[in-house]
């Protein structure tokens, strides 16, 4: 779990995204290119498109002097499954004509959703969020991911014992799942790098 930044809840999300990514969602001119190219934005699959998420963030900033209304727009962005469905493929960021780091914004939204306890509660988002949290927890503790314990922890939390179970033997055969724990050569150095990046002005993981 990333450590919460001080007072970050008081700042509009647009501001937090600007701090984290160096780009402003206020620059979005709603062309829709991110929504058009998002591989997760399949018919019926995404309630709120990335373009609409950008708009909600703009509206939060626009109504900054009306906190009730601004919070409502922020809440809808944070509660939407969209940040959790985001694969981080960066297609949107790469293509955005205004140079907005949309995928980076999704990172901030995930982080803030967890921090404010607003993350989407639907089953699919919950699965992804759990995986996300377990992955980060492991990586931040040991500087390295081991597939089998990660899968086991995920299944433990979500209870999906049979999900993807059939893939297990094949993955084992091909050496994709290692039964023996492996450690990073120098865990301390990896953890330091993560810590450094978190302290940098562009923000951490």
């Amino acid at each position, binding site marked *: 779990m990333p450590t919460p930044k001080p007072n970050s809840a008081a700042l509009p999300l647009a501001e937090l995204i600007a701090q984290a990514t160096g780009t402003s969602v*206020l620059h979005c001119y709603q062309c829709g290119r991110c929504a058009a190219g998002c591989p997760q934005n399949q018919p019926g699959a995404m309630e709120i498109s990335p373009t*609409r998420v950008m*708009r909600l963030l703009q509206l939060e900033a626009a109504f900054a*002097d009306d906190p009730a209304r601004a919070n409502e727009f922020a809440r809808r962005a944070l509660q939407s499954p969209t940040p959790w469905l985001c694969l981080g493929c960066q297609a949107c960021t790469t293509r955005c004509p205004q140079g907005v780091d949309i995928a980076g914004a999704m990172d901030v939204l995930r982080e803030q959703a967890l921090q404010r306890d607003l993350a989407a509660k639907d089953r699919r988002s919950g699965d992804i969020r759990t995986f996300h949290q377990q992955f980060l927890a492991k990586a931040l503790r040991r500087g390295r991911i081991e597939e089998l314990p990660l899968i086991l922890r995920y299944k433990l939390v979500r209870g999906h014992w049979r999900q993807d179970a059939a893939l297990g033997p094949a993955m084992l055969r091909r050496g994709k799942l290692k039964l023996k724990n492996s450690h990073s050569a120098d865990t301390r150095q990896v953890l330091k790098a993560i810590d450094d990046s978190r302290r940098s002005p562009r923000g951490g993981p």
Partner: protein
Amino acid sequence: MSKIGVFICHCGENIGKTVDCPAVAAAARRIPGVAYAVDYRYTCSEPGQAQIRAAIKQYSLTGLIVGACSPRMHERTFRKVAAAAGLNPYLCEIANLREQCSWVHADRSAATAKAIAIIRSAVARVQCNTPLLPIHVPLTRRALVIGGGIAGIQAALDIADGGVEVILLERASSLGGHMAQLSETFPTLDCSQCILTPRMVEAASHPKIRLETYSELERVDGYVGNFQVTIRRKARYVDWSKCTGCGTCWQKCPQKKIAAEFEEGLGRRTAISIPSPQAVPNKPVIDRANCLKFKTGKCGICQKLCPTQAVNFEQKDEFFTEAVGTIVVATGFQTLGKEYFELYAGGDHPDVITGLQFERLASASGPTGGEIRRPSDGQEPRTVVFVQCAGSREPATGRAYCSKICCMYTAKHAMLYRHKVHGGRAFVLCMDVRTPGKGYDEFYRRAVEQDGVNYLRSRAARIYPENGQLVVEAADTLNGGERLELRADLVVLASAAIPQSDVRTLAQKLGIGYDADGWLSEAHPKLRPVETNTAGIFLAGAAQGPKDIPDTVGQASAAAAKVLGLLSNQDLQRDPIVARVRRMPPPEYSTCLGCFACAAACPYQAIEKEEIKDRHGEWIKTIARVNAGLCQGCGTCVSVCRSKSIDLDGFTDDQMCSALEALGG
């Protein structure tokens, strides 16, 4: 017996491939009245032309037919050839064997038969041709520019710099028009006054420009090159030849609470006043409706205090007539008043203002000295909502068009507001943001990205006052059309640009067209954008349609170029293809009955009334007469004439009927 020469051109293979040209020439030779016929590969080439010249002389030809391409291509060429050989050029006709025969047919024998028929028809026509002489129309090397806004100023300056004398007519007392009212101009934010006033002064001091402000066009007679314009110089009640513009009168006038037109009603003026301190000429006029002297007979303070005795309550409107060769119409536009928008706080709320009013609020020379203060209580507005497309793009209320300038000036307004009121919030309600122009989209994005202007995508449904604020019912279609109520301290309507209210009267005086909305019509939307359908009258600026300053100035310079081009001739020479009312000897004089159906049909106002009188001056009858200077030879009058009294030279009934009969035979 006529002696007609026929020249059949192969046009390389264009005609020769499909039409048997030697056979056509041979057939032509057998047509009665044809003295000579020959075919040639390229008749338009120099040897081809030499052949024609030689034949005209050798056979003393009385008519010439060139069977070749379209007359649009080479009629002029071959008529020149005829003239060079001493034959009246209007005795030369083109028989179109290319566009109307070889290019549209495949069967050689049928095409050849059709070509022969076309030649036969042309021979019959040419036998009826009569020699015609070009019409020379004298020219007055002088121009009238109507309207003293930026369009009129620019046109007048360009024409005057070309060495032609200009009368610059303006109905307000000062030059400047709307541009003088603006605060800053997009997309550079340079001050409007700073760039305009030097031009106003330049126009006023130019030796070739005669300024006629506080004057209006009364009537127009004549035609291209020879207009007589009657101008009404409205009574100013101040003798401008004595007035020095010292300002004593307007400082001392007791009537100080009159809503100032120049300030769009946000400021006050006196009964004797100048519109702004930058007025050119800087001389006042008395507003008769508000002057105490005129209302009660008592006062006359201005007259008593004037150091040069310039005030004259007895002054009357003056009328005078000037001769000019061309006219530039640069009468501009106006904007819809807020009273038009009943749904927007009843159309009379002090804190709902128009874009032009906001210009005055933002202007350093305006009623608030450039501070943004709302009219109701003078407070600085913390939230301003700008409503775009107010009255534009709304066919249901009569205007389908886009006013073109509002997107940009709204971005500018919102930007100026954010610069002037720190921490103030600016919302813009828009359908689209249209920014075609150099540096325009960048300007709009700057308003959003740097100056934090919030754009919401919807029209304002309704605006109503509540607790000292205005509630604006809006939505954001970019967020699924979700309804948003905005609480504003000030609402600025980007109200539609509309034509001047009296533009139709003016257009009728000038005999130029206007569209259903009232914008003056150009002769061709793309290729003749500054000409009107009336020769010698040109358009500049927003009178033709909503336009920003760069477009206006560009069109004004274009109109000036057209004026200078026209006036660079010694006289106007025109093709004599004009309509003519048939005359006959007394006692009939003419079969014309004087019904003037032709006058109603003529698109060029070329039909005049002619009174036929006997030698004692007794009236006999009134018949129509065609003004050859105005007639464009369209033939509309010929077709509507019930008594068949009008004919079109070069296309007479005789010529057309003979040609058709020959085709049928």
